[in-house]
């Protein structure tokens, strides 16, 4: 891996102030740009989340600061900055102070390998996706650190739940991404995105470059049809759990655990957990975008592509997925812990294995891909139609509860 991010800013070479000054300046600039990018993104996302939630519940959301409340996020950030930083007495001070930064660093460092443009990422990495998965997985340790050092049982339970959940859901994520990697044959995020400029579904013709209005047909999600779509859904579900979002927000369940592993945190330290949650949401959405939805590629082929259009498409697709996450939060109820583990190990992991196996077969021979796809489509159609036609009639009758005399609230 090369730290190209640091090595490829050419203009500072011309300053000739001696390499030390330039080195310090480069570090400052890179840190400043990335930190601000992520802070602004997270701030705007919190505002959007509140606005969307408001409109979904027939409210207006924040409305006071700025036109339509559009500057609320700045006010929130200022409030968090100036809030008193409370450190409870029964904490391990050192670990308590460090934990937010460990969590934040984990989700923050993943950003530099995302392919924001075709052939451009902040850091060109041969092992792109592996790096992102590895580095964002370190947030678990920070979460355990926060939960344990808080010296509060709510924090500890939240942290243990969160760690168990994240570690478990890495398995289906790894499996479906492995299946997609069989198609691309590289770990480099830029190469993965570029591999989706050509090719037909079912691997019929890997060299195909269609008319501009069919360019989206080459995206990874259409490659081996039912299986890649299933892989996408499995990935997205597991990613929701990975980022502790509803319906899998068991670690932060307000009604059970106050606020999970960051119960004891306040002020700026709390906001670091907040930033890292939103940064993580973007990272998992960006991975889904790159693997399944063509990354920075325009859905219209050469039309509206190149330069800032790439950034537009990449951010647009990723934000669409982030929006769906927010949408789901205000739509679905929370899972129980046992249901969560059941879903991971008994549903998503076998589905991941099936996808891996089927995509492998399909890449081996396109006829197998077509045949498997057809059979699976018929199977899914039969199952779905049965479900749909049966659903009206066979609701199990509600159990009759006899009210006991004088008992019960």
């Amino acid at each position, binding site marked *: 891996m090369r730290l190209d991010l640091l090595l490829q800013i050419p203009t500072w070479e011309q300053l000739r102030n001696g390499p030390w000054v330039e080195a310090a300046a480069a570090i400052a600039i890179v840190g400043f740009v990335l930190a601000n990018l992520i802070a602004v993104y997270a701030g705007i996302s919190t505002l959007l989340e509140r606005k969307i939630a408001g409109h979904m519940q027939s409210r207006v959301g924040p409305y006071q600061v700025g036109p339509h409340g559009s500057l609320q996020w700045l006010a929130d950030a200022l409030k968090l900055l100036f809030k008193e930083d409370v450190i409870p007495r029964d904490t391990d001070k050192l670990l308590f102070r460090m934990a937010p930064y460990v969590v934040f660093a984990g989700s923050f460092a993943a950003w530099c390998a995302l392919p924001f443009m075709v052939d451009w990422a902040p850091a060109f990495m*041969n092992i792109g996706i592996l790096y992102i998965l590895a580095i964002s997985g370190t947030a678990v*340790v920070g979460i355990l650190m926060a939960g344990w050092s808080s010296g509060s049982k709510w924090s500890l339970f939240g942290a243990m739940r969160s760690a168990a959940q994240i570690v478990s859901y890495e398995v289906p994520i790894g499996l479906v991404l492995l299946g997609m990697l069989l198609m691309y044959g590289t770990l480099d995020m830029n190469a993965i995105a570029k591999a989706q400029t050509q090719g037909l579904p079912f691997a019929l013709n890997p060299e195909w470059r269609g008319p501009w209005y069919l360019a989206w047909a080459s995206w990874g999600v259409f490659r081996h049809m039912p299986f890649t779509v299933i892989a996408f859904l499995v990935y997205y579900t597991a990613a929701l759990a990975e980022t502790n979002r509803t319906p899998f927000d068991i670690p932060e369940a307000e009604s059970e655990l106050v606020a999970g592993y960051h119960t004891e945190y306040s002020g700026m330290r709390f906001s670091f957990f907040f930033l890292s949650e939103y940064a993580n949401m973007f990272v998992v959405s960006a991975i889904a975008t790159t693997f399944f939805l063509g990354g920075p590629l325009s859905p219209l082929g050469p039309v509206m592509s190149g330069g800032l259009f790439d950034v537009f498409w990449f951010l647009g697709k990723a934000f669409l997925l982030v929006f769906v996450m927010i949408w789901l939060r205000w739509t679905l109820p929370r899972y129980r812990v046992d249901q969560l583990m059941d879903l991971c190990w008994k549903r998503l992991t076998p589905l991941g294995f099936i996808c891996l196996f089927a995509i492998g077969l399909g890449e081996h021979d396109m006829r197998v891909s077509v045949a498997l796809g057809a059979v699976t489509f018929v199977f899914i159609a039969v199952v779905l139609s049965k479900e749909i036609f049966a659903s009206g009639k066979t609701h199990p009758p509600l159990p009759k509860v006899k009210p006991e005399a004088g008992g019960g609230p």
Partner: protein
Amino acid sequence: MSWGEIVLNVVFYAFAVAGIAGALAVAVSKNIVRSAFALLTVLFSAASFYAFMRADFIFAAQILIYVGGILVLIIFAIMLTHRITNVRLSNESAHSWGAFFACFCVAFALILIVATYRWSRVEKPMVAVVASQPPVRLALAMYQADGTTGVTRGGRMIDGHGVLVVDAPDLPGRMRTGAAARIRIEGPQTILRDVPFEPRGPEGHRARLELSGLPAGKYRWSVALAGEEPEAITPEVPAVDFVAERGLTKAIGWALMGRYLLPFEAVSVLLLAALIGAAFLARKEVKA
């Protein structure tokens, strides 16, 4: 020395200090959970060393498996085997000067060996005789980008950065001024360049060609004196002189699926056994 290198070095030494501090904390910390989190810094520093050695795949595997897997396991084990609500969990250690002395001696001996032994960094240079008039003996060697680590014949040139060196121990007198080596590189990118010889005191003359950013693939190189057609280094024509690579992943993949296939399968069986064994040991006794 460019500013990029300064940044890399500062980062390297920061990680080195963090790694040693973390290892010491694991060894002597009074609090077992702090020991576990100190292990985090050691694992991260080790990963960063891999990155500095440009072993990118190992870097990712280290973080993915050690930090995301083993460390989380260890922390879970600590929390399952202690009264977790107590923040100040003690970590008794039978501190003894004997153990300290033994470890100090081990470290001292290791560092002594490392400092005094001359590690073989460089392949024995290949010798070619260039058929000019009169014939000139040339010694050819390949180095990684740092200029001190050699590349084996047919070996990997990491990230496509490297240095090709042509030594001429006995350049004829009339050729000593203005002589140049003509180096030709064939592969995914073809390069033909005249590199002037520079005097190296009693060791003759040397020409150095720095390569950077070669596209990945297999390369051959050949050399002659300037003004003549380059010829193959050795009479028996090798398939490959060096392989430019971007990252280690591909090489590791080939090694695991080729020469190391049997160990790879054995490890997979062992992992399955460990999975079943751990599940068996840690399960709750079901009362019949």
